[in-house]
């Protein structure tokens, strides 16, 4: 299967799986470590991938949330994300995908304009989060946030679904893209 589908597998008991997609393995690894430090009633699993499609030989659990990590310092990172997005089924974009832009803090190093990722996230109807993953404090906070999002996407939070969360996040967004 070269396209990831959200509901093509049965969930495992009390397990929530997140897939982090990004070119810089070191950053993904650090984020994964931070997430696993969080206290969480669900059993967490973090899959790290450089790009999609994923190798088909692996026996993997159902993926509840995909986070595309884009490093604003690297055009290569953006290009990789754009190409990987083609291998994600449309139904994933109902709250189970989000974009994470890192590196905004060091503006002089940014080779991707912020608007580019904003537009990308907007065209995929998915939330965009900013976090300088290299900074431990910011990373820990983002890890917390992602764990909560993941639990919701895995259906472990009664009364809140991924789609609910998506519409909540959308309504709190600032001015629409056209106004910018």
């Amino acid at each position, binding site marked *: 299967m070269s396209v990831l589908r959200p509901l093509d597998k049965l969930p495992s008991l009390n397990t929530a799986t997140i897939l982090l997609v990004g070119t810089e*393995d070191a950053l993904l690894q650090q984020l994964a470590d931070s997430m696993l430090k969080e206290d969480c009633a669900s059993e967490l*699993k973090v*899959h*790290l991938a*450089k*790009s999609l499609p*994923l*190798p088909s030989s*692996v026996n*993997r659990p159902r993926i509840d949330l995909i986070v595309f990590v884009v490093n604003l310092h690297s055009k290569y990172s953006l290009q990789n994300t754009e190409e990987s997005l083609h291998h994600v089924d449309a139904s994933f974009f109902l709250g189970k995908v989000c974009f994470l832009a890192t590196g905004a803090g060091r503006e002089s190093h940014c080779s991707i304009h912020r608007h580019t990722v904003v537009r990308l996230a907007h065209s995929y109807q998915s939330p965009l989060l900013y976090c300088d993953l290299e900074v431990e404090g910011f990373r820990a906070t983002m890890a917390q946030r992602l764990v909560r999002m993941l639990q919701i996407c895995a259906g472990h939070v009664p009364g809140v679904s991924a789609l609910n969360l998506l519409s909540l996040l959308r309504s709190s967004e600032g001015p629409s893209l056209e106004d910018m």
Partner: protein
Amino acid sequence: MDETVAEFIKRTILKITMNELITILKAWDFLSESQLQTINFRQRKESVVQHLVRLCEEKHASLNDAALLDIIYTQFHQHQKVWDVFQMSKGPGEDVDLFDIKQFKNSFKKILQRALKNSAQETKENAVWFESAWGNSNSQTTSRTPSSAPPARARTLWGQTFETHNSTTPLQERNLGLDINMDSRIIHENIVEKERVQQITQETFGDYPQPQLEFAQYKLETKFKSDLNRSILAEREEPLRCLIKFSSPHLLEALKSLAPAGIADAPLSPLLTCIPNKRMNYFKIRDK
């Protein structure tokens, strides 16, 4: 306080920049808060230095105190020095035993103090720094006439860190060793790809440290190539002149780490990887 100590302190303080001065003086902890408050740090540096030296005299600073100040200055500027690093290892037949770092530090200090006179120590985090001076402490350092032999005053400074290996190794190096995180909850999907990159990098760059290089320069005289179909630049007949310069404190190591870090695809362009083989780092590139 004798002249040599005063001179030593004066020269050390002169090296410190104004914006670091207060921080370093506080770290030194020799002059009290109230004494530091009497100094107007906004004056010219020479006046500040003179004032500080006077205060040190009043407090009878010893050579040890001056050496401590120097150690602290070096700690702040450790990145500006070239260090020799030694790793402690067990001799044949010895057991590896876990030691208590505090006890180790204390006994290490005592051994140093016994073996080397005129040595000052400072512990900071997980490191023990010490400085020792050789030479005749009675000789004048300021006077150098042809008749008197210049004093042999050598100072060695080395810091040894006792941090565990993990925290000092950058993450890139961990990946090169394919030291996959022990946590089984983290799964690397692209193991095969990572191994491929690792292998290509090793084939291209070898296992040993790369030769030290700081620049590579490429002078391009090629026609402009673009993915876009229409481009004013692509329609030019003459080659475009362009100079690309790569600079880094350690260029070849940086290139070696590009693919494992995920910043570039492997294999890298042969224009970059041929540098050690061709023993060149200035290139002129023309269209064939």
